[in-house]
């Protein structure tokens, strides 16, 4: 069964069998505005928590999306190369950014749950 976590940087992390799917929250996509480019990481890259994994470019500015936990990139959402607006229209669904194999599942306990995240964004 998948469980979903959140970060204070407005990412969501859906974990299923040791693999985490990561995206930005609906609140985050609203704050960023219309995205025109998503710079995806290379598959196989190893990230430490806090490393920049993805850069999203809106009409106006570029913003970093950080790795919420340690792990290795196993898949990226290549649909975003031609349609970055998927992040705006379906931030928590088809607009996911990357999947990573968790290096340490214990790190998940440091993340927010849905109630904690809702309290954060009001």
């Amino acid at each position, binding site marked *: 069964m998948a469980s979903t976590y959140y970060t204070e940087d407005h990412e969501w992390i859906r974990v299923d069998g040791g693999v985490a799917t990561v995206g930005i929250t609906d609140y985050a996509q609203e*704050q960023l*505005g*219309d995205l*025109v*480019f998503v*710079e995806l990481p290379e598959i196989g890259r190893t990230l430490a928590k806090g490393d920049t994994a993805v*850069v999203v*470019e*809106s*009409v*106006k*500015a*570029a913003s970093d999306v950080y790795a919420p936990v340690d792990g290795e990139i196993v898949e990226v959402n290549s649909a975003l190369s031609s349609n*970055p607006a998927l992040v*705006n229209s379906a931030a928590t669904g088809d607009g996911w950014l990357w999947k990573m194999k968790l290096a340490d599942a214990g790190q998940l306990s440091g993340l927010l749950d849905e109630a904690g995240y809702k309290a954060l964004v009001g």
Partner: protein
Amino acid sequence: MPGDLKHLPLEDSHVVASARFGAFAGWHMPITYPAGVMKEHLHTRERAGLFDISHMKLIEVDGLQAAAFLDRACPLDAGALAAGQSKYTFLLAEDAGILDDLIVTRLGDTRFMVVANAGNADADIAHLGTIAKDFDVAVKPLDRVFLALQGPDAWAVLSRAGIETGALTFMTGMEPKPGWFMTRSGYTGEDGFEIGLPAADARELVKKLLEDDRVMWIGLAARDSLRLEAGLCLHGQDITPETDPASAGLMWAIPKPVRAAGGFVGAGALADIVARGPSNKRVGLKADGRLPVRGGTALTDEAGNPAGRITSGGFGPSAGHPVAMGYVPVTLAAPGTRLYADVRGTRVPLDVHPLPFTPHRYRKG
């Protein structure tokens, strides 16, 4: 210092419209509305966008020597303007650096209206005040709400709202009512109008305009992408006290006889720059692919030598690709010249591109 930001007189209207606010030039400004920058931008090109630009300053110049005063302050022949005629011009420093860009409109024999940028308004007023000491003229900053209605439907919308624009064509203006100032101009590349008016009148006008299906509020984010596609300079980025009208490619705004007479502040320095030729030139730049290249990014040539920098860059919703402006050495300024920018380690190719990226659609009469 968010607490020190100035607030628009109609801020409550933008709150009601669910604007997202941000700081710009010392003002708390609507950046986007719920439609988002992309839709706001495209709506302006297709219908009519309403902008609250009350952060910009209207300054009335009034007095027997008003024209002579403006000819000293700006590279301008103010006396040659017909009543109602507007002109794009500058305030220059003694070294010909651009202190601000302005629109000056002749209202009468001895009265003119100056429209100044928000971030420079206080400095402009002080600068004008100093020059005014030598002339029989009064420099009067006005408190007005300032609205822009831009887009192909702007004229029809105003007409339906009961605002008669009469014979106004691009870059002409008039005073339709006491306290009002209206020009057919704007900063989007589209046909449109700018209207300065008292706050109470503005509330009434905004209400009427928003009742029209063709009108929506447009925030500063789309104002920026619209002006960038139109190849128009933003003071503070594309033109600054460190750039001059010759490098910026804006000498068309300075009539030849005005250059020759040399009576304006900065004339000597500008003549020197023109005589030896500027070393850099402002150009449009189009990136390959979809990755936007932002202001401040350094440029290199094919061999990796420094080749200037981007001053404004982003995505052009109407152009459908990234758009940018910047300064490059004059030897690399020809359209089609290939340059490169480093964006987070990726070498992004850009071509020098003619400006504007989207054709101007002004109503020239």
